[in-house]
């Protein structure tokens, strides 16, 4: 742990967790500690604040599609999708069926990839190095798919753009995706084997009960681990999620281990969704007519849209307002980590032990980039 200590009074010291921590990303928590016990924690974000919301006001929606990759690098395709849907709704674009299926496939691949990172980072935080190396190795198979389909390993450069997707799936894609899914299946089997290192570090650590979880604004896996069965894909089906058969994993315990288990089960469900989507993949256009040859002066009709999506970390939202110009008037981005890593983390760290900080921090699967935006 990269830390400095400062004495406050005879009993309490201040300890910094981050920002130069190999796993925390650019994010820091100031802990007040009394011996090994944490008296209070205060999150200190802002190392990655670029002001996306206002950068988007200066750009056209097609440029913003590229910018939206960068909101959270670990899940760039998912953020692509949220942004594209907001523009679609404002412009009233009818997205072709094939594009919707491709969007779902890419969003789910992105979720698996993000959960592999999650697994890897929890593993390194709990001292299980093999898990970390394997997870990142397997994630690279998915990055290869991204490179094949979108052209970029991590940044798809606005692959999911307003109106559909930028390019059709290449011929070999279906076979390759199925091939990779088989490999991922093996990785999931490996992860599901009960591991004493994970069990000992994560069980009964950072318990969040349902009432607190809702009050603190937890969403996604964190909320499901506390016992509420909720998933935006089921409750408010976007794209074609209502046509697929999948389960929502729920746990009652609310501890770090439950969150960790939810991540693993979600990967299995995502594999199932992709297989179904590949089976039903219809023929046809992959981008709407208006956008296949985009004009620079396309006006966005006056209005507003609030889009919610379920991404790997929780609920992602984009609120877009247009005043009838060619650029969006106001974009508000709602990142799931913003609430997970500030109020939820501060709450869970109170009265925890210093040794549990990494386990709690990484079990929330935070992405500092989407806190600061």
């Amino acid at each position: 742990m990269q830390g400095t200590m400062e004495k406050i009074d005879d009993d309490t010291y201040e300890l910094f967790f981050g920002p130069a921590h190999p796993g925390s990303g650019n994010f820091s928590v100031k802990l007040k500690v009394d011996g090994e016990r944490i008296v209070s924690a205060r999150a200190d974000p802002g190392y990655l604040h670029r002001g996306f919301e206002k950068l988007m006001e200066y750009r056209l929606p097609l440029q913003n599609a590229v910018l939206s990759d960068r909101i959270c690098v670990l899940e760039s395709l998912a953020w692509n999708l949220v942004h594209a849907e907001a523009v679609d709704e404002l412009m009233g674009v009818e997205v072709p069926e094939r594009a919707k299926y491709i969007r779902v496939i890419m969003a789910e691949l992105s979720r698996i990839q993000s959960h592999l990172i999650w697994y890897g980072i929890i593993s390194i935080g709990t001292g299980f190095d093999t898990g970390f190396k394997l997870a990142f190795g397997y994630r690279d198979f998915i990055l290869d798919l991204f490179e094949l389909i979108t052209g970029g390993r991590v940044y798809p450069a606005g692959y999911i753009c307003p109106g559909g997707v930028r390019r059709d799936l290449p011929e070999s894609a279906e076979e390759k995706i199925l091939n990779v899914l088989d490999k991922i299946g093996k990785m999931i089997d490996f992860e599901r084997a009960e591991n004493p290192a994970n069990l000992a570090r994560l069980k009964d650590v950072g318990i969040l009960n349902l009432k607190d979880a809702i009050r603190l604004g937890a969403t996604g896996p964190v909320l499901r681990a506390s016992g509420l069965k909720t998933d935006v894909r089921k409750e408010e089906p976007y794209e074609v999620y209502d046509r697929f058969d999948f389960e929502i994993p729920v746990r009652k315990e609310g501890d770090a281990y439950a969150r960790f288990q939810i991540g693993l089960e979600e990967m299995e469900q995502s594999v199932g969704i992709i297989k179904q989507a590949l089976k039903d993949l219809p023929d046809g256009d992959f981008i709407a007519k208006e956008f296949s040859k985009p004009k620079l002066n396309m006006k966005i009709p006056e209005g507003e849209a609030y889009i919610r999506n379920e991404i790997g970390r929780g609920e992602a939202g984009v609120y877009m307002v247009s005043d009838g110009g060619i650029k969006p008037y106001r974009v508000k981005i709602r990142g799931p980590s913003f609430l997970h890593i500030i109020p939820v983390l501060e709450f869970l760290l109170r009265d925890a032990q210093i040794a549990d900080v990494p386990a709690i921090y990484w079990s929330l699967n935070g992405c500092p980039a989407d806190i600061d935006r």
Partner: protein
Amino acid sequence: MSEESPQKKVMKRLIKAIWVFNWFNSCGFCELVPLVGSRWDMERFGIIVVGNPRHADVLFIAGYQTLKSIKRAQRIYEQTSEPKVVIALGSCTMTGGMYWDSYNTIKRLEDYLPVTMYIPGCPPRPEAVFEAVGKIFKHVEEMK
């Protein structure tokens, strides 16, 4: 036998293994961390990630720096012991990249820190990082 400068003597010792400290913003994270993973496995080239800048030979400054994070980066640079090499990753460190009109990011890293080498790309591919590190080896060999 040709005379070796004291600097080369130090650098030759360094050349066997390069210890890296990462100061990464998000894009650096998603391309530098896979390097440690089993696919790219940078340890086979003698590159090891360390947890403390005081142990490091090479400092990776990855991605755009905001006004808040550049202060920490400068601190880390000061803590890194000599001789040190600073490698900047990504287009954002050269020109501001995507965020050229953002009010809170710096535009050129070399205005704030002495940069030895830039790796272009948004983000750079793992191979590019390997090539850059290879160039450090080469640079030391050619040193007088």
